[in-house]
């Protein structure tokens, strides 16, 4: 009731000075809009990049072997030991070589040929576009089968179905059993230009004797750190306690550190934008002081009619909160529109979190309270006699 009356009176005063109220709000509008836009854009970018990293696999640990002169990479027994560790769902070795491929008399030079196993395809069924994937039989019997990337399909088999056709890789004939789906955007190992063959076949035919990269898939990612320790304890003796000979890399860690980094960046940007909020707050304080000087007589009269100092203070604080809150809401809308447009232009996702909305509303009302307090206190302390006398 008391609050309602104060709100009504404050509202009437803001409406009465439309232009001045609007100009005063502008500082808050700009401040809140920039905070919302920056946070939302950075958040959207973070989500998009995180998603792409996740697509590479958050549930896996990547082991890379640089090797020592005595042991140049991982061998079959290393892979077997690792695959039997606790919490391991499967392992997928990668062998990589570059060579030329020939089909239908057309030659493609310097093509990446990767040796993989069945786990690689089982873990991500979206990898395959047509045909079948490499299976356990292909691995066991070193079958000469190949799956080819999208660009190779376009170059060698434009308008044809490549499945079942023959392909010469490094002088040996392989049968094409499938094609890879087009991989898009940011990817550390784009498969558009790749040929994938069973890794056992690759070990034999590519002239590579060791596996250098091993993807280890986890059952439970929450204990990924334990698995990293387990894998290290297998590899450490295998490489004769030379810790520089291999690295064990947890993809989840990378996403975590990336998100921490982006979080800090968005805080930093929001901090810079918050400075404009402070400037906006000073604008509100200034207008409140002017308004109080203008309305000195009114304040005096209200006091004579029985308004307590607390009542006067409440009215002016509400007026100040109103100004900054309306500014905050306009800023929220404006900032969201800006972020939305930016999201479309940059091509990242747009999501406005409740957290961001709460931040905008909370911040702007806090500005109203902080910068309205001093003027409101000044108004409440006016001596009614002096106030009534002033003309």
């Amino acid at each position: 009731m008391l609050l309602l009356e104060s709100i009504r009176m404050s509202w009437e005063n803001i409406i009465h000075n439309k232009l001045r109220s609007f100009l005063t709000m502008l500082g808050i509008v700009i401040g809140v809009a920039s905070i919302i836009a920056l946070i939302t854009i950075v958040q959207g970018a973070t989500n998009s990049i995180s998603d792409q990293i996740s697509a590479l696999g958050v549930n896996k640990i990547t082991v890379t072997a640089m090797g020592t002169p005595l042991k140049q990479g991982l061998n079959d027994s290393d892979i077997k030991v690792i695959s039997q560790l606790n919490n391991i769902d499967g392992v997928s070795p990668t062998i990589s070589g570059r060579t030329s491929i020939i089909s239908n008399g057309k030659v493609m030079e310097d093509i990446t040929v990767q040796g993989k196993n069945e786990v690689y395809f089982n873990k991500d069924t979206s990898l395959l576009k047509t045909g079948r994937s490499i299976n356990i039989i292909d691995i066991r019997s070193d079958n000469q089968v190949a799956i080819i990337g999208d660009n190779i399909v376009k170059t060698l088999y434009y308008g044809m179905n490549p499945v079942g056709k023959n392909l010469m890789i490094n002088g040996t004939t392989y049968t094409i059993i499938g094609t890879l789906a087009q991989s898009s955007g940011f990817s550390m190992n784009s498969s558009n230009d790749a040929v994938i063959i069973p890794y056992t076949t690759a070990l034999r035919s590519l002239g590579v004797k060791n596996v250098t990269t091993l993807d280890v898939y986890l059952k439970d990612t929450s204990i990924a750190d334990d698995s990293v320790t387990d894998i290290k304890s297998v590899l450490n003796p295998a490489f004769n306690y030379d810790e520089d000979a291999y690295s064990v890399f947890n993809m989840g860690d990378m996403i975590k550190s990336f998100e921490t980094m982006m979080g800090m960046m968005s805080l930093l940007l929001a901090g810079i934008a918050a400075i404009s909020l402070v400037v906006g707050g000073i604008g509100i304080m200034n207008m409140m002081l002017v308004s109080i000087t203008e309305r000195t007589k009114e304040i005096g009269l209200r006091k004579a009619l029985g308004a307590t100092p607390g009542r006067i203070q409440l009215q002016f604080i509400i007026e100040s909160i109103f100004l900054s809150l309306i500014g905050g809401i306009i800023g929220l809308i404006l900032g969201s529109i800006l972020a939305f447009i930016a999201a479309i232009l940059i091509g990242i996702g747009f999501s406005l979190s409740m957290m961001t909305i709460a931040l905008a509303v909370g911040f702007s009302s806090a500005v109203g309270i902080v910068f309205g307090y001093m003027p409101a206190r000044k108004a409440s302390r006016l001596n009614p006699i002096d106030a009534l006398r002033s003309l």
Partner: protein
Amino acid sequence: MSEILNMKNICKSYYMGDEELEVLHDVNLVVHAGEFLSILGPSGSGKSTIMNIIGCLDIPSTGEYLLSGTDIDDLDESELAAVRNKEIGFVFQSFQLLPRLSALKNVELPLIYSNVPVSERKKRAKEMLEKVGLSDKMNNLPNQLSGGQQQRVAIARALVTEPTILLADEPTGALDQKTGSQVMELFEKLNSDGRTIIMITHDQNIAKHATRVVNILDGYLTEAEVN
């Protein structure tokens, strides 16, 4: 009749820099319910100061002021505001209506500060405006009213809380002769209905409308001869 206002040895001093300036000297005044008192004095006589003290806008430097039995000296700012709201109805020389509010809203104002519910507030404000003869002007803004009408809105505002004292400061000062005497007729009527009125004025002719006149000169209050 019951005593509603009692001032005992009231002094009031102001400081002009280091210099102390006593504007009220040892004022004693008793007002009973139902009186219509004029405080008559020229400008600079201290009549504004005594009006501010009566209206609880200011507190005396020394002396005792009892209003409806309450010692004003014991009260803090908020309690003084409540006393002003309940006990005193102010009528000012320059009306002091809020220009953005309609006549009705202006009259409602003191009731807002005593937390009267909206519907009752409206009802009481309307009744009071009818009583001062402005039932057809309720929704007019002050600048759409004549001086006399504005002062009647101000009187309605002063009376809407049913205060103990109607305290008027030069109520006809900003009005022409004719509307001024209409306002005085209204005061006389209110007084005959039992309302206690204290009026501050410098005008002998206006003061004559009261049932009792006290003179104030250079800070000294003296009872005038009964006319």
